[in-house]
C-alpha cells in the first residue's frame, strides 16, 4: 500500500464518521487546552513574579552585611551604627574587609554603601522628596550597570544621581485634599537643596542645607535603585559626622553594606559562601531567583500534571472509541484482508485514524488553549489593578514550543491509545473477522 493511498484512506475513514471522530476528539481538545492553559498560567505567574521582584536584575551581585558570630542582636543595620554602637560579637565591614574580599577569586568589584543617619529632605522650590540616600565610594556608578534615563553616571562631590522613581515623587507639603498633585519638575541638571535635620539632646531641631546638583537619572527598573539617591561617600560621611557630632572611623565603626560583584553570575553563589565563611552575611539574588524558579517549576509540573491527567482521560476515551470502532468494523477489516490488505496495512490504517483523532483534538486544544490564555490576559489587563511600579500585568505566557509540544503530545496520545485496538485488528484471522456479527 502506498503512503499516499494510506493517507487518503485514513482521511476518508475519518471523514466517513465525522460525528464519532469529533466526539472523541473533544476529549483530546479539553486535555490539550488545559495543558496549554495551565502551563501558560504557571509560566506567566513566574514571569510576573520575577519581573516584580526588587533587585533581582543583577545576578552577579553579592550583598554583604556585618556578621553576628554569637548572640545575634536585633538591630536595624544602617540606622544605629556609629561610635560605640557596635555590639559585641559583631563582625563589622571595614576597609580591611574590602581588601580581603577583593582577594577572592572571581571578584571584580567591592565597594561600600552607606546610609544616612538622620532625616534628609530634597527640595525643588516648594516641592519635597524623600529619597533613600546612599553614599558610594565611586567616581562613576557605571560599574553598577544601571540603565540611565538621562544625564551621566560620573559622580563628584556636590552631585547626585537619582532613581527614576525618585524623579517622579516630588510632592507639595501644602497640598490640600482633593487638589491635583503638582507637575513633576525636570530636575536633571538642576541644583536642588538637601535639608539635613538633627535634634539636640534638648530636642531642638537644627537644619543644615547643602546644594546638590542632579547629574543623572536612572531608568525605572522595578528594582531597588528606583528609590535611591547616590552621593559620594566622603560627602555622606561628612553629613553623618555633622548629624552625630563626632568623627566616623570606618575601621572601627564599619560600613552598612558592601556591594560585591562577581565576574560571572555562576560564581556569585560561590563568592557569597566564601564571604559567609569569613563571618559576614552575604546574599545573592541567585538564591532568590533559584528558589522562585524551582517553585514555579514545581507549579508547572503540577499544572502540567493536571492537564496531562485530562489528556490521559482523553486517551482512555480514544482507546475506547477505537476499540468500539474496531468491533463495529470487524467485518470491514475482514473485507480489507479478503481483498488483499496486509496486517501492516490494517495496523497503519487504524493507527493513522487514532493519530488523526489525536491530531484533530490537538489542533482544537491548541486553538482553545492559546485563545483562552490570550483572553485571560485581556481580562487581567482590564480588571486587575495596575502595578504601582508599572510591573507587568501579564497573567499567562505561552512560549512558542508549548502549542507545538501539545500538538505532538496529543497525536502521540492518539497513537498510543490506538495501539492495542489496532494491533488486535491487524492480527485478526480474515475469516473470523468476516463471520463476526
Amino acid at each position, binding site marked *: 500500500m*502506498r503512503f499516499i493511498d494510506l493517507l487518503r484512506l485514513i482521511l476518508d475513514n475519518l471523514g466517513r464518521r465525522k460525528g464519532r471522530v469529533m466526539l472523541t476528539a473533544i476529549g483530546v481538545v479539553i486535555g490539550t487546552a488545559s495543558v496549554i492553559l495551565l502551563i501558560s498560567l504557571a509560566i506567566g505567574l513566574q514571569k510576573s513574579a520575577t519581573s516584580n521582584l526588587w533587585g533581582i536584575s543583577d545576578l552577579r551581585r553579592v550583598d554583604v552585611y556585618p556578621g553576628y558570630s554569637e548572640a545575634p542582636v536585633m538591630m536595624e543595620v544602617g540606622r544605629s551604627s556609629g561610635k560605640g554602637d557596635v555590639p559585641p560579637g559583631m563582625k563589622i565591614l571595614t576597609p580591611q574587609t574590602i581588601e580581603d574580599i577583593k582577594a577572592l577569586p572571581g571578584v571584580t568589584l567591592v565597594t561600600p554603601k552607606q546610609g544616612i543617619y538622620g532625616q534628609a529632605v530634597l527640595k525643588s522650590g516648594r516641592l519635597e522628596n524623600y529619597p533613600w540616600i546612599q553614599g558610594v565610594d565611586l567616581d562613576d556608578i557605571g560599574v553598577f550597570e544601571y540603565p540611565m534615563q538621562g544625564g551621566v553616571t560620573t559622580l563628584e562631590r556636590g552631585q547626585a544621581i537619582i532613581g527614576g522613581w525618585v524623579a517622579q515623587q516630588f510632592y507639595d507639603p501644602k497640598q490640600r485634599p482633593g487638589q491635583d498633585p503638582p507637575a513633576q519638575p525636570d530636575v536633571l541638571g538642576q541644583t536642588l537643596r538637601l535639608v539635613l535635620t538633627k535634634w539636640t539632646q534638648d530636642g531642638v531641631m537644627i537644619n543644615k542645607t547643602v546644594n546638590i546638583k542632579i547629574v543623572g537619572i536612572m531608568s525605572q527598573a522595578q528594582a531597588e535603585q528606583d528609590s535611591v539617591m547616590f552621593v559620594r561617600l566622603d560627602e555622606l560621611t561628612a553629613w553623618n559626622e555633622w548629624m552625630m557630632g563626632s568623627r566616623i572611623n570606618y575601621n572601627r565603626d564599619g560600613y552598612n553594606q558592601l556591594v560585591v560583584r562577581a565576574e560571572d553570575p555562576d560564581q556569585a553563589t560561590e563568592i557569597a559562601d566564601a564571604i559567609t565563611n569569613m563571618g559576614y552575611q552575604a546574599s545573592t539574588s541567585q538564591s532568590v531567583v533559584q528558589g522562585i524558579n524551582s517553585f514555579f517549576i514545581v507549579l508547572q509540573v503540577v499544572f502540567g500534571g493536571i492537564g496531562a491527567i485530562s489528556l490521559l482521560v482523553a486517551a482512555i476515551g480514544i482507546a475506547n472509541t477505537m476499540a468500539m470502532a474496531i468491533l463495529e468494523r470487524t*467485518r470491514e477489516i475482514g473485507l480489507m484482508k479478503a481483498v*488483499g490488505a*496486509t496486517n501492516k496495512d490494517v495496523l497503519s490504517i487504524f493507527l493513522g485514524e487514532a493519530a488523526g483523532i489525536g491530531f484533530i483534538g490537538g489542533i482544537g486544544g491548541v486553538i482553545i488553549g492559546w485563545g483562552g490564555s490570550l483572553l485571560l490576559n485581556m481580562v487581567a489587563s482590564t480588571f486587575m489593578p495596575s502595578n504601582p511600579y508599572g510591573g507587568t500585568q501579564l497573567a499567562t505566557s505561552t512560549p512558542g514550543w508549548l502549542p507545538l509540544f501539545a500538538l505532538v503530545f496529543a497525536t502521540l496520545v492518539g497513537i498510543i491509545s490506538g495501539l492495542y485496538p489496532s494491533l488486535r485488528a491487524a492480527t485478526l484471522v480474515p475469516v473470523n473477522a468476516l463471520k463476526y456479527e
Partner: protein
Amino acid sequence: MTIFIQIRDLRKTYVMGKSTVHALDGIDLDIIPGSFTVVMGPSGSGKSTLLHLIGGLDRPTSGSIVVDGEPLEKMDENQLAEYRRKMVGFIFQSFNLVATMNAAENVGFPMRFARTTNRERRTRSMELLKRVGLDDRALHKPTELSGGQQQRVAIARSLVNQPKIILADEPTGNLDTASGYGIMQLLSVLHKAGHTVIVVTHDPRMQHFSTHIIYLLDGRIVSEAEYQAASTFDFAETSEGETTHES
C-alpha cells in the same frame, strides 16, 4: 489436462472444549483452469470452510492447496495477502459492502491496497459497474440498492484486481429467485471470459452453468448418488414430525 488448483488431503479441525469438529475431513480435489465448479452439500458439510481455505482467508489444519504451482501453506501472512489481492475475487452471501461508501467506492476499495492511482481506480470502478449494468447507480450507497444490485456491486468489486479465481459463497442466498438467476448468468459470463469460478450454492439451477459439480458431506467429497441418498434421508427426517405425507 493442466491442474490449476490442486488440493490434497485437506483437513480443518475445530476444537471447541472437549468436542472436535472435522469441518474438512480429507479433501482431494483438482480444479482445471477456466472451469466452473459448483459445490453443493447440506448445511455444516464444510462448503464455506473449503472456499475460505482456497481463498487464503484461513489456514488448514493439515493438507495442501497448490494454486498455479504455489503452495499456500508455504506462504507467510504478507504473501497470503498478496495472493488474495492478485489471484482471488471473493463474493459473499451477505455482500459485505462498506455501508458508508457508495457503489463506485466499494468497487474500487481493493485497489486501495494495490498501488494504483486514484484516476485508474475511478475509471476501472466505472468500467466494472458498467459491466454489471449498474453504471447509473455509481453514487448510490448500499442501502439505496436492491439486494441483487448490491451483489452485482460485490461482483464488480471481486473483479477489480483482475483475479484468475472467483470464489462465491452462496451468492444468491439472500436474493429472490429472479435476481438470483441474474447473478448466476453474470457468474457464467465471467466463467466464459476465462475466470476459474467456484461457487457454493444450494440453488440447483446453478448446475446448468457449471462444468463440474462436487458434493460435500461431513467434510468429505462424495458421489452424487451418496449425496442424493443423504439429502433424501435428511429430508425424511426433518419432515417426519411435520407431515404424514410421503413424497
